[in-house]
C-alpha cells in the first residue's frame, strides 16, 4: 500500500508540472510557409513575391486565352467541329466554356496577387526599413501585371469589376461590373505609375520602365480608339482634362507616341534579325521581349509549364512529347501570309509542307525535320512549337515546352508607333512612321530580302493586316477588331460577316470562318500550292453576326444575336455573383 501512495504522489506531481506547460502546448507554427506577419524585412522577400507574378498566373491563360482570342478572330481552324474553337469562331460559344472561366480566373489571379503586393507588402517592407526606391520598383512590377491584366479583361468582357482588394468582397460577393472606361483608366493609372517606379533595367525576365511604357501605349491606343468613336463619358473627359472625345483621342495618340518613342530611343530592346528565332527556348527572354510569361524550362511542376508544344505538326517534331495537333491556321490568314511573300514570317508562323527546320527534330535519323507533303490538307501552327527535348537542350518535357511565351514584343512597339502617328487619320506617309513600320516588314523577309518592298504610304487597313500577320497567335487580333469596332462598327460587322469580299478587290478582308482548304506547295506546284477547290464545309454557312443593341447597352453577347464585342461572363461567375449581369457602375478614383 505504501508503494501505491508513492506512485500516486508521483503522478500528481507529474500532472501539475505538465499543466503549467499547457499554454505552450497549443502554440504551433508553420514549418513550411512564411507568415506575412514575420516577413518582408528584406527586399528579397518582396522581390520573391513579384517573381511569382511572371509564371503561375499565366499557366492557363497562355493556353485558354489563345483559344478564345485566336478562335474568335478566325485566325485558327479546327478539324472536328465538336471543339470549342469553332464555336468561338462562329460566335456560338456558351457561358459554361472552360476557356472563359480559366481566362477570367487567371487574369484575376494576377490582379489579386498584385493587389496584396501593392496594398500590403510594399508598405510593410518600407515600414520594416527596406530601401523605398527598390520597394517601389516592386510595386511597379505589380502594377504592370495588374494593368496588363485589366487591359485583357476589358478587351474580352468590356465591363468588369475592378478589384482593389479582394478581401473587401469576402462577405459581399454581389458586385456589379465597373464600366469599360473606368477599367481602362485604372489600367492607364497602374501602367503610368509602373513606368515611373520601375527601373530602366533589371535581371532577365523582369519587366522594366520600358515594358510599362510599351504596355501603356497599347492601352492608350485602345483609349484613343474609344475616344474616336465618341464613347467616353463627360465625367471621364472632365477627369482627364479633355474638352471632347476628339481632344481625348489626340491626347492619347500623343501620349502613346511618346511612350513608344521612349522605348525605341532609350531602351536596349530591339528586334531579333530573324523572325523565327524569337520562338526558341535558346533565345528565351531575348532582346525583343519586353514581357514574357516566365515558364520554367525542364520543369514538370504543375502550373509552371508552357503547353503550346502541343500545336506540333506531329510526334517527330517534338520527339513524341506530343502528337499532331488538330489546330490549324485559318484559310484567310494563311492566304495573307502566303501572298505577302515574307518567307521568314511564314516559316516562323506555320508549318508549310516541304520546308525544312534544321533546329527541329534533331533527334530524328535525318537530323532535322522536314514538313512532309501529302500528309495533311491544312497547315499546323509553328509559332510556340519548340521541338524535342534534344532540340531545346533539355528544356522541353512532356507538358512543358520550356519556352518563355513572349507577351509584348518590340515589333509591336514599332507598329504602335506608326499607329500613334497616324492618329485619327486613315493613312500616313510620315517618314518616322514609315521607317518603323517598314522595319517590321523588312525583318519578316530576312530569308528572302530581295522580295521585300518598302511601303511608302500606310493605311489603317495596312496596319491592321500587318498586326494580324506579325502577331499571329499572340492574342492581339481579336482585341484589334474590338478596337476597330469602337469607331467603325459597320466595318467590323461587315468583316465578321464576310461581306467585304466583293467590295475589296484585294480580298484582304475575307472571313471564311471554318473554311476548309488544302495548301501543299510540293503537291500543287501549278496552283501556287493551293488545292483548286477550297470549300465551305457542309453544314456551315456564312456568318450572321449582328449588333443591334443601342450604344451604352450593357447586355453581353451570348451567341451571335446580341451586342458589344464582349464575351459572356463565365457561368460559374454569374452563379456566385448575379450582379455581374447588372448595369456597370463607375469606379471612384
Amino acid at each position: 500500500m505504501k508503494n501505491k501512495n508513492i506512485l500516486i504522489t508521483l503522478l500528481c506531481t507529474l500532472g501539475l508540472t505538465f499543466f503549467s506547460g499547457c499554454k505552450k502546448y497549443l502554440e504551433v507554427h508553420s514549418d513550411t510557409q512564411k507568415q506575412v506577419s514575420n516577413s518582408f524585412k528584406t527586399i528579397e522577400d518582396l522581390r520573391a513575391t513579384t517573381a511569382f507574378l511572371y509564371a503561375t498566373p499565366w499557366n492557363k491563360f497562355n493556353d485558354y486565352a489563345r483559344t478564345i482570342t485566336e478562335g474568335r478572330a478566325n485566325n485558327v481552324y479546327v478539324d472536328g467541329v465538336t471543339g470549342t474553337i469553332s464555336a468561338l469562331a462562329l460566335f456560338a460559344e456558351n457561358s459554361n466554356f472552360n476557356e472563359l472561366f480559366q481566362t477570367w480566373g487567371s487574369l484575376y489571379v494576377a490582379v489579386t496577387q498584385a493587389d496584396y503586393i501593392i496594398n500590403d507588402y510594399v508598405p510593410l517592407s518600407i515600414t520594416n526599413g527596406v530601401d523605398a526606391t527598390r520597394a517601389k520598383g516592386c510595386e511597379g512590377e505589380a502594377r504592370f501585371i495588374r494593368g496588363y491584366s485589366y487591359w485583357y479583361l476589358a478587351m474580352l468582357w468590356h465591363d468588369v469589376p475592378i478589384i482593389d482588394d479582394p478581401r473587401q468582397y469576402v462577405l459581399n460577393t454581389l458586385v456589379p461590373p465597373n464600366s469599360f472606361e473606368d477599367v481602362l483608366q485604372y489600367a492607364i493609372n497602374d501602367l503610368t505609375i509602373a513606368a515611373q517606379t520601375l527601373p530602366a533595367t533589371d535581371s532577365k525576365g523582369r519587366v522594366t520602365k520600358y515594358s510599362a511604357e510599351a504596355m501603356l501605349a497599347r492601352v492608350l491606343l485602345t483609349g484613343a480608339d474609344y475616344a474616336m468613336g465618341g464613347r467616353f463619358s463627360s465625367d471621364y473627359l472632365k477627369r482627364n482634362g479633355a474638352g471632347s472625345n476628339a481632344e481625348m483621342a489626340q491626347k492619347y495618340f500623343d501620349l502613346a507616341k511618346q511612350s513608344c518613342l521612349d522605348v525605341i530611343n532609350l531602351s536596349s530592346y530591339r528586334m531579333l534579325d530573324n523572325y523565327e528565332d524569337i520562338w526558341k527556348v535558346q533565345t528565351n527572354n531575348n532582346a525583343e521581349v519586353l514581357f514574357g510569361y516566365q515558364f520554367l524550362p525542364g520543369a514538370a511542376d504543375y502550373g509552371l509549364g508552357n503547353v503550346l508544344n502541343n500545336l506540333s505538326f506531329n510526334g517527330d517534331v517534338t520527339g513524341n512529347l506530343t502528337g499532331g495537333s488538330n489546330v490549324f491556321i485559318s484559310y484567310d490568314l494563311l492566304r495573307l501570309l502566303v501572298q505577302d511573300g515574307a518567307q521568314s514570317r511564314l516559316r516562323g508562323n506555320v508549318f508549310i509542307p516541304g520546308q525544312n527546320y534544321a533546329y527541329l527534330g534533331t533527334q530524328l535519323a535525318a537530323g532535322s525535320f522536314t514538313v512532309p507533303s501529302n500528309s495533311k490538307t491544312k497547315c499546323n501552327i509553328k509559332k510556340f512549337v519548340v521541338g524535342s527535348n534534344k532540340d531545346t537542350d533539355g528544356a522541353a518535357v512532356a507538358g512543358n515546352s520550356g519556352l518563355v511565351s513572349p507577351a509584348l514584343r518590340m515589333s509591336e512597339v514599332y507598329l504602335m508607333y506608326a499607329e500613334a502617328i497616324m492618329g485619327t487619320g486613315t493613312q500616313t506617309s510620315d517618314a518616322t512612321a514609315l521607317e518603323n513600320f517598314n522595319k517590321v516588314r523588312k525583318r519578316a523577309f530576312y530569308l528572302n530580302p530581295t522580295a521585300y518592298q518598302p511601303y511608302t504610304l500606310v493605311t489603317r487597313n495596312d496596319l491592321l493586316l500587318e498586326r494580324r500577320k506579325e502577331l499571329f497567335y499572340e492574342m492581339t487580333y481579336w482585341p484589334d477588331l474590338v478596337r476597330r469596332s469602337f469607331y467603325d462598327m459597320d466595318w467590323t460587322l461587315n468583316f465578321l460577316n464576310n461581306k467585304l469580299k466583293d467590295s475589296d478587290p484585294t480580298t484582304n478582308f475575307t472571313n471564311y470562318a471554318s473554311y476548309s482548304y488544302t495548301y501543299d506547295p510540293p503537291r500543287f506546284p501549278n496552283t501556287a500550292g493551293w488545292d483548286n477547290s477550297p470549300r465551305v464545309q457542309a453544314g456551315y454557312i456564312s456568318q450572321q453576326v449582328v449588333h443591334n443593341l443601342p450604344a451604352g447597352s450593357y447586355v453581353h453577347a451570348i451567341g451571335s444575336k446580341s451586342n458589344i464585342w464582349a464575351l459572356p461572363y463565365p457561368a460559374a461567375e454569374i452563379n456566385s455573383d448575379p450582379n455581374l449581369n447588372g448595369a456597370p457602375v463607375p469606379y471612384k478614383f
Partner: protein
Amino acid sequence: MRMTKIFTKIPISILILLSSLSVAAQDITVSGRVTDKAGGALPGVSVSQLSTSKGVTTNQDGVYKISVPPGAILKFSSLGFVAQLITVNNKKVIDVKLIADVKNLDEVVVQVGYSTMRKSDLTGAVSSIGSDVFANSVVTTLDQALQGRIAGLQSTMNSGVPGGGSSVQIRGVNSINSTNEPIYVIDGVIISGQTGNNDVNPLASINSNDIASVEVLKDASATAIYGSQGANGVVLITMKKGKNAKPVLSFNARYGLEKLPKLINMMNLSEYAQHHNDFSDVLGYGRRADFSFPQYLGEGTNWQKELFKTAPMQSYDLSVRGGNKESTYSVSGGYLNQDAIVLGANYKRFVFRVNMDNEIQPWAKIGATVNVTQDKQSTAISTFGAVGNALFQSPAVPIRNADGSFAGPTSDLDANTLGFSNPVALAMLNTRTRERFDTRGNLYLQLLPAKGISFRTEVNVDANTDNYLQFLPAYQFGASIKANTENKHDKTYNFYLGWKNILNIDKSFGTNHRTSLMLGQEMISRRGDYLTGSRQYGSNVLTGLDAGDANYATNNGSGYNSRLMSFFGRATYNYKERYLFTGTMRWDGSSNFARGHQWGAFPSAAIAWRLSEEPFFKSLKGSISNAKLRLSYGIVGNSNVAAFAYDSNLSNIRTNSQGTGLQTANISNPNLTWETTKSWNAGMDLTILNNRVELVFDSYIKKTDDLLLRLSLPAFTGTSDIPGSAQAPWYNIGALQNKGFEFTVNTRNITRDNFSWKTTAIFTYNRNMVTRMNTATASIPMYDTSNGKNIITSTSAGSAVSQFYGYQMIGRINSAADFLKDNGNGTSTVITPTFKYKTGTIINNNDATLITSTYIGDLLFADVNHDGIVNERDITNIGSPFPSFTFGLTNSFSYKNFDFSFFFNGSIGGKVFNILRSRTDDPRSLSNVREIVTNYARLGYKDGNSANTNIWNVYVLPGADPSLGRMSVQNTNNSIFSDSYVEDASYLRLQNVSLGYKFPTRLLEKMFIKSVRVYTNLQNVITFSKYSGYDPEVGSLNGQNMLTYGVDGGRIPSSRFYTFGLDMNF
C-alpha cells in the same frame, strides 16, 4: 442482485460457521460437464451451491467438480446464458446444457468513451454490433459491415477498389466544407475517418476478425465526451482480448471470387461505325475508309469485358487467446490478398496484433497493445479513369495487332483529341501502388487505490507511412504515344501521440443512490509531413526514382502540426434503478485557431426514466421486461480547418532563375473559432413479449451553428482553383440542421432447441437543411470539368446541402409548332424560349442560321426565371442525392448445426446525377456511346425534299428516344447538364447471404479440434433499381466531399462477391 442483499444482511461469521458445519456433514462430490446447446464445452461457468459462498468454475473442457451436501441446490451461471438451478439429489454426475440468454441488460456492459457503462444505465443514443456480424459478412474494411446495420448511420463506398474509401455519416451531413466523417476510437487512438482520396480507407489497418464489438455514439450526450472531435459521431471499436482460460487457437480461411454485377450497353463496332458515318455525313467530312461497310464489322472490342474481370480473393487469420488470473493475452495475425475487378488492381494486407493485460498487484494493472499493419494497394489504371476508359474507348481499336504487339488508335484525331488509347495495355504497363505501414499501440497503468476508485494513465501512439509509387513507362500504341517514362514517388508520414489520465469513482449511497464520476485530461498531438518527387526519361523497366533523369526532377513537400488539449468529466446518478442522469463536460483547446479563440466548452446532459422499474409497472412486467425513456441535450464542436487558416501565409513557388517565389497562399481570418452543434435527442427502449422483441427508437434535432465554411467566392477574388490562386478564407458563418428519427427492432421469432430465427430491422430517416449562409443569396457551387465547366451541385440556404444543379429539360422540338407560331408571312414568332431566341423574337422561316442555333430536334429547357430566354440564370435545383429513408433487414436462422442468414439493405428516394451520360448519351460524340443513341432525333421533311430547310418543313421522325436530341453540326446544348441525367437511385439490395455448417463437436474432439465451421457467403447478390448506371450506390465524386455526393462520374462499382470460408478452433 438479490443474493448480494442477503449476503450483506447476514453477518459473515454466521455464514462461515454454517458452511463449515455443512462440510462437516456428509458431502458428496458432484462432477459433470457444462455445454452449450450444440454440445460445445463451456469453460468458466460458475457452479455454486445456492445460499452458500461455495462455488467453483468449470475448466477449459467445461468440466467441474464440487463437494456439496446431497440435498444441495447447484446454480450454474455464466454471462450470456440463462442460469439453471439443479437439486443434487444424491446424483454424482450432473451434465448441464446452458441455453444462451438474450443478454440481461443489467449485465451487458458497453463502451461509452473513456469508461464503460451498464447498458441499462445508458441515457444517450448508442448502438452496438457484435462480432457475429463480422463473422457473417465478408468485408475488407469495417465500414462495409456497418452499412445497413446501425440505425442512423449511412455508409457509402466511394470506390469499388478493395481497400478503397467510403463515406460514413452519422445522422446526416453536419458540416459543409469540413469533414463529415465520424471519428473511430481504436485501442484508445482517435482516428479521423477523413481521407482526401477515394482510394484510401482509414480503417484499412483494422482486421475485422480482431473486433469484439463496435459501439456507435450518436447523440450529443454520448459524443460530447469527445468534445470537439465528436461532432460527426463516434465509433468505438473494442478489440478482442485474452481471457482467463486455456488457450484457444483459431484459424480462419476464406476464398472468394468477385465480378462486375452489370455491364452498360454500349455500341459494338458495327453500331459505332454506323454512328460515326452518320455524324461524318452531318459534318460533311468523308466517312472513315475502314467504316465503309459497318454491317460487316461485327462486335469489335468490348472494353468493358476486357477491363473488368472476375477476381479472386483469399484471406487467412490465425489467433491465440488465453491467460490466467494474473495475465491474459491475445495474439493474432491475418493476411488478405484481393484482386480488384479492374484489370491490374490488387490489394494485399498483413495485420499483426498483440494484446496483454497484467495484474501486477491487486491494486495495479498494466497492459499494452500493439497493432501492426502493412498493406499494398495496386491500381495500374487510375481508379477515376477506369470506367471512362472502358466506356468511351472506340470498339474499333483491337487489343493486339496480328504480330502480338499492343494495338492502338490509328489517327491523331482519335489519339489526341478523343483520347483513345489501349487501356488493357496500360493496365499491364503502368504501376500505381500505395504501400502503407501502420503501427498503433497503447500502454497503460491502472491503479485501484480503493474500492470503486480507479485511475488510469495511458499513452497512445499511431505512426504510419504511406508510400505511393507511380511508374508510367513510355509506349506507342498506334497513334497513342507517350514519349517519356515518368517515375513519381510520394511519401507521407503521420504521427499521433496521445496521453490521457482518467479517474473513475463509483459510489453508492444506501441502496437507492448509485453515482459515478469520471474526470479526465487528454493531450493529442498530430503531425506529419509529405514528400513527393518525380523524374522523367528513365528506364522503361526500372521503377525507382533514381532511375529517372535528375535533370527532369521535381520535388515538393508539406507538413502539418496540430495539437489538442482537453479536460473532461462525466457524472452519473442512478436513483433506485428508475431515474438516471448523465452529465458530461469537455473543454478543448485547439492549435488550429489563433490565441484567444482556441478554447471551446462542450457540455451535455441526459436523463432517463426506466418505467419498468416503477412499482406501478409490476403487473406489466411479465409482458414488458424493460421500458426506458431517454432525453438528452448537448453541444459538440468542430475544429477541422486547414492549419494556420487564421494567418496570412506565403507559399513557395519555383521561378525561372529568380529563386523561390512567394505566392499569397490564402485570405486569412484571425477570428476563426469553433463550429458548434447543439443537439436534442428523445429515445425509448422497449423489451416486450418475454424478451422476444426489443425496440430502440430515437428522434433528434441537431443544429449546427457558426459553421466552419471555406467561403466559395467568385473567381474575381483570386480564389478559384486556377494555378496561382489564393485559398478562400474559412469563416464561422452559416447554419444547418438535421432532423430525423431512427429505430432498431430485434426479434427472436422462433427459439427452439434445434431451430431458431432472429430478425433485426433498422430504419433511418434524416432531413438536412441549410438554414443560413454568409449572404442571403450565397451558394456554394461545385464544378465538374469533364465536359465544359459545369456546376453540378449547389448548396444554399433553404434546402439540403449539395442539391444537383442544372437545367430543367421540358421536351424536344419535334416540329416547329413546339416553339414557334407561324405568322403566315414567311416569318414566325418564338413562343417557347431557347438558348438562342427570346420569346417574341421574329424569325425568318427560311433563315439558314436556324440550323446552327435552334432547330427541329433540339431539346427544350425551362426558362425558370421567365425572362424570355434560356441561359445560365435558369440553372436550378434539379434533385437531391439524399434518400428519404434507408433501412436494413437481417434474418438469421439456425437449424441443428446449420446457420443461414440473409441481409437486405435499401435506400429510397435518393437521386443520382449521372453526368457520365452527357458523354455516353450524346449523339454528337465521336467516342463510343450507349446503344440507345442509335435512336437519336433523326429529321424528316414533309415534302420529302431534304434541301427544303424551311423550319415548317422539318419534323423529327417517329421512334426517337425522347431524351435525345439531333445530330447537329454545332453544339446546340442538347447534352448540357440537366435533370434528364438525374435518375432515381432508390434501391433494394440483397446485400449478403450466408450459409454455414458447424461440425458436431463429438466428431472433432478426438482430433483435438474444438469446433469447425464451413460457410459460403454471397455479397451484393442482387439489386433492384431503375438506375441506368452500374450501381445506384454512388458516393462522393471526389474524396469524401459531401458536396459532390451522388454524382456519378464513373466510379468503380461494387462487385458481386462469392466467398467460401472455414473457421476452426483448437
